[in-house]
């Protein structure tokens, strides 16, 4: 029983991701989308915390379309998985529920 968390705000300006990270546990997942993909940058606030979560087995995803639109494809942290809209849907099927942080 685990939760997919989506975050669509940049952690450079908004603390939504910070709260999401506090709540995220064990088998949860985090999807960064829209302006949230800026938080996938290696230089982003909470980048270390995201990587630590990943090492605990929490998968971190970023929406590829949003990453490409913002020219971040070659700048994001290595542990973050890029996914399509179709894979976004599959994630919501595989997790039990979704919490949107905005």
């Amino acid at each position, binding site marked *: 029983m685990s939760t997919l968390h989506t975050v*669509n705000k940049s952690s450079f300006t908004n603390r939504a991701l910070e709260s999401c990270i506090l709540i995220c546990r064990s088998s949860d997942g985090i999807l960064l989308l*829209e*302006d949230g993909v800026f938080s996938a940058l290696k230089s982003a606030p909470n980048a270390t915390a995201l990587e630590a979560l990943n090492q605990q087995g929490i998968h971190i995803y970023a929406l590829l379309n949003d990453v490409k639109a913002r020219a971040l494809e070659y700048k994001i942290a290595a542990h973050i998985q890029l996914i*399509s*809209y*179709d894979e*976004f849907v599959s994630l919501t*099927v595989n997790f039990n529920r*979704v919490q949107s942080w*905005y």
Partner: protein
Amino acid sequence: MIVPVMIFSINVQSPPSSQASYSAYQFCRALLRQGHNLHRVFFYQDGIYNATNLAAPPQDELDLYSEWQKLSKEHSVELVVCIAAALKRGLLNQEESIRYNKAGHNLAEGFTLGGLGQLIEAAAVSDRLITFGN
């Protein structure tokens, strides 16, 4: 691997000027492509502005208003607009326009006005309820 077919409902709370409305639309398209069932899209808060029939976006920009309508037509998706949120923001169908003695109405075809109960009913019958907020 067998992928279960699920019933989705979507809660759009963002205006057309926010990318969250576009994400919601793309998510709906993707889940339908995969054979899932889209029970209802519920428009709440500034999300109700997606349902106007008076918008004239520039020719070289995406017309998200029309895309919602096409989605509804092609897949018989219910597009329900929260009536309380709509009334206070100036989005009316003919019936509400008469009731409130307004000069016109602007709810686009394919959208219907409904109460918050429609959001809750959607939650009750759906396997997944996804919020797109701003």
